[in-house]
């Protein structure tokens, strides 16, 4: 599974994920709507799910989560679960609808990002952190969800390029 992915999309997903992480750690650390850091990488993982389906979304999320953990010093694998789950959940859009619309993709990316963001403190709780759930989570999750929905307009085409997935084209049957 991983070998096949290496030959297809990993060489694009990894550098793109690093660029998006760099943007998240520079631009969005200073530009915080409602005091919340916009989670660009998480939104990208969800966007990968929207265009690639649950399995590809989960793998892309897993890889992006590893990149995030390597960069931030959090336990390796903790963010992978959150982002992998976001990619997996968003991928169900690809299952239930072949030709998706931009607004439906935005809703799924936002919803999956919200779940992913909520999973981060949940995982921290599981690894032994006592006060993982803070009151500002009530602000963080909606802001991350809305910002991910807006970013999906850009990230979904990027994810399509990274995963090398052509948009479906409807052709009229030959007579």
């Amino acid at each position, binding site marked *: 599974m991983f070998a096949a992915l290496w030959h297809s999309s990993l060489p694009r997903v990894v550098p793109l994920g690093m660029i998006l992480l760099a943007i998240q750690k520079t631009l969005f650390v200073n*530009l915080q709507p409602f005091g919340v850091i916009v989670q660009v990488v998480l939104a990208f993982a969800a966007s990968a799910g929207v265009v690639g389906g649950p399995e590809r979304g989960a793998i892309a999320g897993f890889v992006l989560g590893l990149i995030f953990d390597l960069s931030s*010093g959090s336990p390796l694998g903790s963010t992978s679960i959150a982002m992998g789950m976001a990619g997996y959940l968003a991928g169900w859009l690809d299952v239930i609808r072949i030709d998706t619309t931009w607004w439906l993709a935005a809703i799924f990316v936002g919803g999956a990002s919200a779940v992913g963001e909520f999973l981060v403190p949940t995982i921290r709780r599981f690894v032994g952190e006592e006060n993982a759930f803070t009151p500002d989570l009530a602000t963080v999750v909606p802001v991350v969800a809305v910002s991910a929905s807006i970013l999906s307009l850009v990230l979904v085409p990027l994810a399509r390029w990274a995963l090398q997935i052509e948009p479906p084209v409807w052709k009229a049957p030959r007579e």
Partner: protein
Amino acid sequence: MLILLLTSIMLITIDLRGNALLDGARSGFDYAFRPFEIAAEVVTKPVERVWSGVTEVDDLKRENEILREQLDQQRADQIANQNALAENQELRALLNLDSLADLDKVPCSSIGVSGSNDLQVVEVDCGTTDGVRTGMPVINQAGLVGKITRAYPETSVVMLVTDLSYHVEVKVVSEEAAEEEEPPPSTSPTGFPLDSLPDIADDLSSTTTTTTTTTPPFFVSSTTTSTTSPITTTTPALPGVVPGSGVVPGDITGTPTSSTSSTSTTTTTTLKPVTRETGVLDGYGEGSLPRVRLIDSSLQFGEAKVGDQVLTTGGRTSQAPPNIPVGVVANIIEVPGVAGNQLEVQPSADIGRLNFLMVLLYQPSTELGGG
């Protein structure tokens, strides 16, 4: 998905137990990621400036006015503080006490912050080649900032005091002792009011009469004690002042001196008593102030008050050397039960605007062996 989940759990387990291979991977990734971060910083700088220009001008003007007022106030304080600092260092040298000035420091600059809403960490531009190791405390001019959680050759990751995983032992120093100075009270050598002396005297096998002359706050006071006791007595014998109880008078300016009595009159010089209580400071995440727990009200300490100073305790198992300013008590949260109240602490250091930092080359015993 299940395979990925299990892989993640396995990675978390291995990483939490400490693994040289994963540390190496992190270090390598740090090198690989640095150019991306620098490029993103350059590219996004104009956007950040525009955003700051639009959103922060009014706040900055207001803050500038407040800071100017504070600067005027602090100029006066600075002179007094420098004098106090010099005296403190002289006293510490006399008593052979460790001081922060004895520790080597590595200056660092903040070069990045976490992109997460949950992690409170910053990256600094000094690493193991500078002598930085995991667990070392990080300070700035204002006080404690956090500790090193990852040290790479050129860079390190600093966990801030506001992070949920941050814990450090602290003491809360009551300012009540300073307020008691006006008017100068009549106190016993240990700081007990004379009113309480009859009770205390019951516990002692001697009759004590004390007159005290008190000098300005936090400085040395001289006490003259006359006693009829035929034996030698020492001040720690007084109730409530048990060595190691966490209530140690005179902690800021030094240790209390014991008073030795002879059969006639003995003159004792003791330090100004400053009460304190110890607890554990826990980070509560972004947007929330760190809290001190395990604080217990005691006769000597009384109730903690807003504005009380919070400093590190030091000690063998502490994460930081003693007497680093952490902040001031901002709120008191009453907690029912026996655990005692919790104190919300406003950190002295402006955690949101860290620029130049100092890593104290002090490795806690609990972190020895870390990279």
